[in-house]
């Protein structure tokens, strides 16, 4: 098949899997997950083929794979949709393909396939475990299979469809479609255990928060379409004339059109990849099953946000560039830096193993956005790829840990929170594979020098910041990186080293191969993915910086490679090692029941961090409450009942008066006509205005709305500029 | 003598214009004249159809039929008309007079409308409409309307029930009929009756799609509301249905409408599947087509009569089941089969093409019969008393 054909067909298998599972194989677990995994595998093969062909192609970037069709006739023109692979898409497809497949496989084990049915499990709640008799005849509880096993695979299938659609699409419209599909799936999967109120709340929260961004994003897309008449990437982002025009025409706000559009779309990105101030949904999203956390909230969906940000970089930088930042880039830089630091600080004080990872995800995404903000295009893409790998690895590892601890808890019948790191410890011996892979991931996250992928990507971001003399950004990111290393080591130490702090941790058990295999494979990538982008100068030009060459070709004029400088590299070495060792020293000997050693020295600051800077409360008080008040008190009570009804009453009254006045002047003498004029008038108010206000009479509504429409239309017709 | 109507038209046109009548106006006038002539022919034919019907039914029932007035009683219809005219013209109490009087007129008009698109010969036709097949359906819709108007306006529960039955009948059987009407359209690539007739010079479509012809015949009979589908006027249950309240000439209009409708559908069958006016020597002398057309139409009409006077009336639920569970799927499968085969065989020369289509039809028919047989067997086993008794005994 030609690459274009593969591209068109790429998103299809997961969708088919979704349909099949929902409609037919809902009852048979084996069939369901085999279909789902097979679909994921097909898409994976497809993306690998595309990636290899893309890499093989000479001068890829100037010449790309693309095909598009007329979709909707709009008058004489058409709304075109299509698919495309340029270098950015290629690398994105690479990691999406891998992570998605890994997570599909992992989910089989995570949902305890092959384990017995739970004693009192029911759909919508986590499995509570099942009692089984071993050969000696005495019963003990072990993990039980997920009641809604098939449904889960259907959902993630749909999700994978959305992600592939988003990646291969060649225009913002289909991208938006995939984007929203993923939003829906995120909602469904976070609320997968809808029996838990917290999960329900988290699902709604995630959905609503991302909607806030999406509205702006849609505005941006519409704006872009209205300005350029197309939504195709190539025609806009690879087209210097268009970019130049957009960059140099100015909106009434004073910023260029390009920046305005970029900022609008960027707000959507803020929502999707959980940047401050719309980050609140991501930590709560950890209510979902861990594969979901890995897939949506580490590897794919949040990456999609950054992917889009990288896409629109030409727009954001139009009319400016690396050396004079456009407003859009500044926005990105500021928000990215702040998010990176702020999330890192929160992560330091969390005890839930998944929450820590959630905040670290936010902070790493902040890194990428900040990198884009300072024009470090390639670095952002690079970190996106490596981060996807090691963060997926970490999440899956944490899931494996939780799984092991849960097993222990069920085994011992001890009721502990299996996600609290202070209930763990000493898992190194119990679950070796998980430990080693998790360690690799953690080191990659904290940028352990020279071997891990995270080091190279993060270093490149820092180097860019340094080279472009963005000192503020540089220092903030350095600080954030230090914290990253610190909390990563804190996590690893608390989880794996030392002595078990609970019986559950003691009886923890290594997870089945379906869960460990993905860990290993991802672990490999968490190391080797970084070698694609080793700075040329470091290897004395023997190995070219392949990633830079490759992805740089996405832009019309390639970003020039950096002049190499040892300062940022030394910095990143030092901070990573320093942070790691610090974390090790602080958390080395935490006994069972000890509080977090940082509580005493930091005091209130720690409480602030532990409570996530009180952001949820902030929103609750300053956004949610006012909204409710607005809807309930202001709109309903005041506007509806007082103002609108008042107006309508008045209208009815006046019309009544007029109509009646005429009759009186024709019929009866004015004088005694005047008497019942008032009385009749008031009666008319009651009689005539009643149907106008909300009395549930549909035609009354029609009349009222039509009146308003006519008035507005006349106004526009006569007073139009 | 190649194109008599055309010559006549040109002559009259020239005559009028020479009299100083405007071109457009005279055109309209001549069209009106043509309409009048066509309708008159139809009505006169209708009168004799009464006689034919009575003769044929008499033969079916082993009687002589009308044989007093005129040779072979050929003037019997006039006697009937006179009788109808001198009968009292009643209007029931509480009837909606306007609608009540409008209904029979519409009923006859809906039939006469059909004559506009009948290609009586290659040079003798009302109008060559490029959507004639749809036009037929449209006229049928008007017929339905007239029925429901009659049933509602005569303020009589039997009439209303009859109208409901008739409407249910017509609307249901319209579906297979429309589907089958698509088949000649597929074969000729046109919905014009004239084109359909012309494209049957070599072979009649009945050879290509016999099953379609059969289904069309059935649904046509149902559309006409004649036996075995004459539930709308089941004398035993609802005394003669929707036109129970009509007497005198109004009833006469309904009656004439029904007979003419039957004949017209015979004509449609002959046009769509039996080559219309095509016959030996038509190419040399187009007017000969008129003769062939009427012969074929009469044969079609005779078949309809044959069915009517042979097959007893069926129950309404049977009728609807037969339509929805058998006829509609069957006609759709015929449509699909025809489309596919036509597309795949259209390249070959005529014998191969016709043979292939015929074979496909036979195969489809055989499959259908097998399915029906299997179902009938199951049904029989289900409501066979002995087997049930056996089943109970074994328990």
């Amino acid at each position, binding site marked *: 098949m030609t690459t274009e054909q593969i591209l068109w067909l790429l998103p299809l298998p997961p969708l088919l899997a979704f349909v099949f599972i929902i409609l037919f194989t809902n009852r048979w677990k084996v069939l369901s997950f085999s279909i789902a995994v097979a679909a994921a595998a097909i898409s994976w093969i497809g993306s690998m083929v595309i990636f290899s062909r893309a890499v093989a192609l000479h001068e890829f970037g100037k010449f790309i794979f693309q095909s598009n069709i007329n979709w909707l006739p709009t008058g004489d023109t058409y709304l075109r949709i299509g698919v495309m692979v340029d270098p950015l898409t290629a690398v994105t497809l690479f990691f999406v393909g891998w992570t998605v497949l890994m997570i599909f496989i992992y989910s089989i084990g995570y949902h305890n396939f092959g384990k017995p049915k739970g004693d009192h499990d029911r759909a919508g709640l986590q499995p509570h475990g099942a009692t089984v008799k071993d050969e000696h005849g005495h019963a003990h509880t072990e993990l039980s299979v997920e009641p809604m096993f098939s449904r889960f695979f259907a959902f993630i299938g749909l999700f994978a469809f959305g992600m592939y659609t988003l990646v291969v699409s060649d225009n913002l419209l289909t991208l938006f479609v995939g984007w929203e599909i993923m939003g829906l799936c995120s909602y469904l999967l976070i609320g997968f255990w809808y029996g838990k109120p917290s999960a329900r709340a988290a699902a709604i929260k995630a959905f609503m928060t991302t909607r806030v961004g999406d509205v702006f994003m849609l505005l941006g897309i519409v704006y872009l379409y209205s300005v350029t008449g197309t939504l195709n990437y190539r025609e806009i982002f690879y087209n210097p004339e268009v970019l130049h025009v957009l960059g140099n025409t100015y909106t009434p706000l004073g910023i260029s059109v390009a920046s305005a559009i970029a900022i609008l779309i960027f707000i959507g990105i803020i929502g999707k990849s959980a940047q401050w101030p719309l980050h609140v949904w991501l930590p709560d999203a950890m209510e979902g099953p861990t594969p979901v956390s890995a897939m949506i909230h580490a590897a794919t969906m949040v990456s999609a946000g950054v992917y889009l940000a990288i896409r629109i970089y030409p727009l954001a930088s139009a009319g400016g560039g690396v050396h004079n930042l456009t407003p859009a880039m500044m926005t990105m830089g500021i928000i990215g830096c702040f998010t990176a630091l702020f999330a890192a600080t929160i992560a330091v004080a969390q005890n839930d193993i998944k929450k820590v990872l959630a905040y670290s995800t936010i902070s790493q995404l902040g890194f990428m956005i900040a990198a884009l903000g300072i024009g470090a295009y390639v670095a952002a893409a690079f970190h996106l790829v490596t981060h996807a790998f090691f963060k997926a690895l970490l999440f899956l590892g944490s899931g494996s840990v939780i799984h092991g601890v849960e097993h222990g808890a069920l085994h011992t019948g001890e009721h502990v929170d299996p996600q609290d790191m202070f209930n763990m410890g000493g898992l190194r011996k119990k679950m070796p594979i998980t430990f080693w892979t998790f360690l690799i991931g953690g080191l990659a996250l904290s940028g352990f020098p020279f071997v891990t992928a995270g080091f190279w990507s993060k270093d490149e971001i820092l180097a860019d910041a340094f080279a472009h003399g963005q000192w503020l950004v540089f220092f903030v990111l350095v600080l954030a990186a230090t914290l990253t290393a610190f909390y990563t080591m804190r996590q690893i130490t608390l989880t794996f080293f030392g002595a078990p702090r609970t019986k559950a941790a003691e009886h923890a058990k290594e997870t089945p191969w379906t869960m460990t295999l993905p860990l290993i494979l991802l672990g490999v990538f968490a190391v080797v993915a970084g070698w694609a982008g080793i700075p040329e100068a470091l290897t004395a030009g023997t190995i070219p910086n392949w990633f830079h060459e490759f992805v740089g070709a996405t832009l019309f004029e390639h970003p020039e490679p950096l002049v190499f400088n040892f300062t940022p590299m030394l910095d990143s070495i030092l901070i990573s090692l320093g942070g790691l060792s610090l974390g090790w020293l602080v958390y080395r000997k935490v006994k069972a029941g000890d509080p977090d050693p940082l509580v005493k020295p930091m005091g209130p600051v720690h409480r602030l961090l532990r409570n996530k800077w009180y952001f949820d409360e902030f929103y609750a008080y300053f956004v949610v409450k006012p909204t409710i008040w607005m809807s309930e008190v202001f709109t309903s009570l005041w506007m509806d009942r007082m103002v609108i009804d008042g107006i309508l009453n008045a209208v009815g009254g006046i019309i009544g008066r007029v109509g009646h006045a005429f009759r009186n002047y024709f019929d009866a003498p004015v004088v005694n006509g005047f008497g019942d004029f008032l009385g009749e008038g008031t009666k008319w108010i009651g009689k005539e205005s009643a149907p106008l206000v909300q*009395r549930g*009479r549909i035609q009354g509504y029609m009349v009222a709305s*039509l009146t308003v429409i006519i008035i507005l239309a006349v106004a526009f017709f006569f007073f139009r500029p | 003598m190649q194109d008599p109507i055309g010559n006549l038209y040109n002559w009259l046109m020239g005559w009028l214009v020479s009299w100083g009548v405007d071109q457009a106006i005279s055109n309209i006038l001549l069209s009106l004249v043509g309409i009048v002539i066509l309708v008159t022919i139809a009505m006169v034919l209708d009168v004799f159809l009464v006689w034919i019907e009575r003769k044929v039914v008499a033969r079916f029932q082993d009687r002589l039929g009308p044989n007093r007035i005129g040779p072979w009683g050929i003037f019997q219809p006039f006697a009937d008309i006179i009788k109808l005219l001198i009968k009292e013209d009643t209007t029931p109490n509480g009837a909606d007079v306007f609608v009540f009087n409008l209904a029979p007129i519409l009923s006859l008009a809906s039939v006469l409308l059909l004559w506009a698109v009948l290609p009586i010969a290659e040079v003798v036709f009302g109008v060559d409409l490029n959507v004639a097949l749809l036009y037929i359906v449209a006229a049928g819709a008007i017929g339905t309307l007239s029925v429901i108007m009659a049933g509602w306006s005569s303020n009589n529960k039997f009439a209303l029930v009859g109208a409901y039955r008739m409407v249910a009948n017509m609307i249901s059987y319209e579906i297979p009929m429309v589907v089958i009407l698509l088949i000649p359209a597929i074969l000729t690539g046109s919905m014009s009756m004239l084109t359909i007739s012309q494209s049957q010079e070599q072979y009649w479509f009945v050879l290509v799609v016999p099953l379609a012809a059969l289904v069309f015949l059935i649904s046509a009979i149902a559309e006409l509301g004649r036996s075995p589908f004459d539930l709308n006027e089941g004398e035993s249950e609802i005394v003669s249905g929707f036109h129970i309240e009509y007497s005198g000439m109004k009833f006469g209009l309904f009656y004439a409408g029904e007979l003419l409708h039957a004949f017209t559908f015979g004509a449609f069958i002959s046009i769509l599947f039996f080559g219309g006016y095509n016959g030996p020597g038509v190419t040399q002398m187009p007017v000969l087509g008129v003769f062939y057309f009427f012969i074929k139409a009469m044969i079609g009409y005779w078949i309809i009569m044959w069915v009517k006077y042979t097959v007893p009336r069926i129950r309404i639920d049977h009728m609807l089941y037969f339509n929805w569970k058998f006829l509609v799927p069957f006609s759709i499968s015929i449509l699909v089969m025809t489309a596919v085969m036509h597309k795949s065989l259209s390249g070959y020369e005529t014998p191969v093409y016709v043979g292939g289509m015929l074979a496909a039809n036979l195969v489809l028919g055989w499959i259908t019969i097998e399915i029906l047989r299997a179902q009938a067997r199951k049904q029989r086993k289900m409501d066979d008393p002995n087997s049930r008794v056996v089943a109970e005994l074994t328990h």
Partner: protein
Amino acid sequence: MIPLSWFLILSAALFSIGLFGVMARKNAVAILLSVELMLNAVNINLVAFWRYGNIVNMAGQVFAIIVFAVAAAEVAVGLALVISVYRRFNTVVADEIDLMKW
């Protein structure tokens, strides 16, 4: 020949009459009837613009056909609603079906 304006005026008039019926008739079935009038007015406009515009671009007729489909669907669902409302409230007067009020 007939100028375009005739058709436009006709359809405008038909539309207004239908609108009046929709807003003023009591009987829900009558409201649906009036909706049909409005849809027909729209169709007249579509076809007229097709005829007076570029003949080869069939957009007008195509959308007239789609309006047919929409009308059929609307009538089917609307009448079904009316009938079920009639079962529930034993009336089809639009003003008497006013549960949706505060």
